[in-house]
C-alpha cells in the first residue's frame, strides 16, 4: 500500500525541552489515521511540522515519497485545534480568501464554495459577518474552507470540540465520505470512542516519543487480556465444576433463557477451540468472543506504563 505520509526520526527541540524525540510514523493512503497522546505530548508540534509551520531539527517528512516542500501546502488541508476566523469579515469573502491562499483560483473557489454552502444549506450566510454566527456555525464554515481545495491529506486537530452532537455526527459522516473519496486523514484527538469508530490506524505519542503505532483492530487484539465473553443456555453449575482449574469466572449475568459470563483464561496453553469443545458438553453456546479492550483502556495502560518505566529509569 502507498504511504501518503512518512515521518522519519523527526526531532524538534525548543530551548528548554525536547518536543519530539525521533518520532517516525507512516500513514497509508486512503485511511483515517489517529494521532493520539496526552496534552503536551508533541502532537501539535508534529502536525505543525507536517504543515510546514515549523521545520524539524532532524529527520524528514515525505509526502507520497517526495520530501516535504512548498508545493505540498496546496495538497494539505488543516483544521487546527485553535481555530477561528476574522470576526469582522463577511463569511463568503473570507472563505474565498482562505481558499485562494491555499492556491485555488478565484473562480474555482467560488464555484466549489457555492456547492458546499448549498450542501450545508447555509447560502444565506454568505454576506453575514462571522461575528454574527454561532460558534457551531463558524466551525462549519471553517470545515468547508479546510476541505474545499480537495487536499489529498487532511489534518484535523480535535475536530469534534465545539460541535454539538448533531453537528459532530454530520462532521463524522463528512469525514467518512472524504475517506471514501480517497482522501487520507490524520486525526488528532483525546476522544477515544471516536477513534474506535472511525480510525483505521493510530499512533500514540507520549512525552515526545512514539510509543505505539499500528492498525486499530490488531492493536486492540494485541492488548486484549485473555478474557472471553460467553453467552449460553444450559447447566451452569457443571460448567463451573469442570473449568475452575483453568478459568477464573469474573462476572455472570443471568437473564431469561440463558446467562452471559466473562471468564479469564488462566491456562495460557489452551486455544479457543479447546474452550469451546469443553463448554459444549454442558450447554448450548449462543455466542463466544474474545473481549477487546477499548482504545481508552489501551491509551491509559500504555501511557501509564511508559511513564512508570521512565520514572524507574530516572531512579
Amino acid at each position, binding site marked *: 500500500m502507498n504511504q501518503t505520509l512518512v515521518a522519519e526520526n523527526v526531532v524538534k527541540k*525548543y*530551548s528548554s525541552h525536547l518536543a519530539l524525540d525521533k518520532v517516525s510514523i507512516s500513514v497509508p493512503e486512503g485511511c483515517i489515521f489517529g494521532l493520539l497522546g496526552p496534552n503536551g505530548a508533541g502532537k501539535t508540534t508534529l502536525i*505543525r511540522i507536517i*504543515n*510546514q*509551520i*515549523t*521545520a524539524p*531539527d532532524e529527520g524528514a517528512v515525505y509526502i507520497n515519497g517526495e520530501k516535504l516542500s512548498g508545493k505540498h*501546502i496546496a495538497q*494539505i488541508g*488543516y*483544521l*487546527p485545534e*485553535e*481555530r*477561528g*476566523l*476574522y*470576526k*469582522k*469579515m463577511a463569511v463568503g469573502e473570507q472563505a474565498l*480568501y*482562505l481558499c*485562494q*491562499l*491555499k*492556491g485555488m483560483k478565484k473562480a474555482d473557489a467560488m464555484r466549489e464554495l457555492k456547492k458546499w454552502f448549498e450542501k450545508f444549506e447555509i447560502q444565506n450566510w454568505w454576506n453575514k459577518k462571522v461575528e454574527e454566527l454561532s460558534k457551531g456555525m463558524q466551525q462549519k464554515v*471553517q470545515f468547508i*474552507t479546510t476541505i474545499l481545495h480537495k487536499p489529498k491529506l487532511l489534518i484535523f486537530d480535535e475536530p469534534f470540540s465545539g460541535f454539538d452532537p448533531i453537528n459532530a455526527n454530520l462532521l463524522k459522516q463528512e469525514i467518512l465520505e472524504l475517506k471514501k473519496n480517497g482522501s487520507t486523514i490524520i486525526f488528532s484527538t483525546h476522544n477515544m470512542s471516536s477513534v474506535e469508530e472511525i480510525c483505521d490506524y493510530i499512533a500514540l505519542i507520549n512525552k515526545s516519543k512514539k510509543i505505539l503505532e499500528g492498525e486499530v483492530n490488531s492493536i486492540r487484539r494485541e492488548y486484549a487480556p485473555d478474557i472471553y465473553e460467553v453467552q449460553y443456555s444450559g447447566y451452569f453449575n457443571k460448567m463451573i465444576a469442570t473449568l475452575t482449574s483453568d478459568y477464573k469466572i469474573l462476572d455472570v449475568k443471568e437473564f431469561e433463557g440463558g446467562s452471559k459470563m466473562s471468564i479469564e483464561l488462566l491456562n495460557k496453553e489452551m486455544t479457543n477451540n479447546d474452550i469451546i469443545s469443553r463448554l459444549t458438553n454442558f450447554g448450548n453456546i449462543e455466542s463466544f468472543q474474545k473481549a477487546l479492550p477499548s482504545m481508552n483502556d489501551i491509551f491509559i495502560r500504555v501511557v501509564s506504563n511508559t511513564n512508570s518505566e521512565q520514572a524507574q529509569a530516572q531512579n
Partner: protein
Amino acid sequence: MSKIGLIIGREYKTRVRKKSFIVMTILGPILFAALMVAPAILMRLEDDDFKNIAVIDETGLFDQYSLKNTKSINFDFVSEKYFRGSYYDLSEAKANLKDSEHYALLYIPINALSANNGSVQLFSYQQPNMGLKMHISNGIEKKAEEMKLSKKAEELEITQQEIDNILMVANTSINVITTTMNDDGTEKESSTTVAMIIGYICGFLIYMFIFMYGSMVMNGVIEEKSNRIVEVIVSSVKPFQLMLGKIIGVALVGITQFVLWVMLTLGIVTITYAVLQKDFSTADLNPQTQIMGSSLTDATDVNTDDMAKFDDIMKAMNSVNYVGLLLMFLFYFIGGYLLYAGMFAIAGSAVDNETDTQQFMLPITVPLILGIFVMLSAINNPDGSLAYWFSIIPFTSPIVMLVRIPFGVPFTDIIISMVLLVATFIAMTWLAAKIYRVGILMYGKKTNYKELWKWLKYRN
C-alpha cells in the same frame, strides 16, 4: 508572490472599507481646512460686528481725528455730550454700560499722557479683540507723540513742518531677506518662518502617521492571534509573508489616506477662499464704506501693508521645492513607518490582547517622542549638531530630517540618513520576522524581553 498580493489586498480592502477610515478621511481635511480658513473667516466675522464705544476723556485732548471711526468701530465721546467742561462720573458710566447701546467704555484718565508709559482703561462685558485694542492704542500713542513733538518744536523754535521733515528722513524700515545659496551657485529667496512652519507640520505628520499606522499593524497582529485564525493562515503562507503583507497593506492604506487628505484639503481650501474672496469684493462696494471717507484711506493703508506681507509669504512659499519636499516626505514616512511597523508587529505577536502591549510599546514611544523634542529645538537651529545627529540616527531621522529639509540640507547628509534608514528597517524587519513567527503561535504565557530573546534564537 501572489500570496503576498492576496494578503496585501485583504489588509487593504478591509481597512479602506471600515467606517472609521471613511470618517477619518472626510473629517481630516475638514479639520485641516478649518485650521487654514478659520482665521480668514474669523476676521470676516469680526469685521461685520459693529462696535460702539463710549469714551470718557478726562484729558479733553481726543476727538474724531485722533480716535478715528472705522467700518466697525465708532467712538462716542460721551463726556462731551453730558458734562462739557466737568468730569464725567466713571462709576456711573460703568454701571450704565450694560443697558446702554455701547459695546465698551474707554476711560482716558487725566494723567494718561503724562508719563512715557501711560495707560487707559477699556471696560466691556465681552473680551475685546486684538484689533480694537491695537486701534485704540495706536490712536492714543500717535496723539501723545504729536503732542510731545509739538512741545519739543516750541522749545527748539522750529515749525511742525520741519519736524515732519526730520521724521520722514529718519523713518527707516528694515526687512531681512533670507536667501539660501545652493552648491551649484544658484540662489533662492526663502523665508525662515515659512520653512519653520512647513518643517514643523511635516515632522509632526510623520510622527502621527507612524503611530497611527504602526498601531494598525499591531492591532491586526493581535486580532489574528486572538481570533486564532493565524494558525490556519500560516499553514498556507509563511509567517514572514503574512507579516510583510500586513505591513505593506497598511502602508498602502496610509498612502491612500494621505493622498486623499491632501487633495480634499486643497479642494476645500480653494473653494472656501474663492467664496470668501467673492464676499470681500461685494463688501467693498458697500455704500457704508464709501461714506466714511476718512476711514477709507486708513483701511487701504492697512490693506497694502497686509498685501505686501502676504506677497512675501507667497513668494517664500513658492520658493519651497514642493515636489522635492513631497518626495522626501513620502520617503521618510514610508521608511520610518516600515522601521517602526516591524517593532509594532513584534509587540503584537508577543501578547494575547491589547492591554498587555504596554511594556513592548516603550521602545517604540521613547525614540518617537525624543524625535518630537529634538524637532522642536531643531526648528530653531536646523544645522546644529543635535539636529544633525538625530537626523542621521534612523529611529528619529524621519521626524528630525523633515524639519531640516525646508531649510536646505547638504546632499551627503540626506544620503547617509536615507541609507541608514533603509538598512535599519531591513534589519528590523528581519528581526521582527524571527520573533513574530514564534510569537503568533504562543498563547497564554506572559511574555517578557527575555522570552523574546529566546524566540529570536529559535531555529525555524
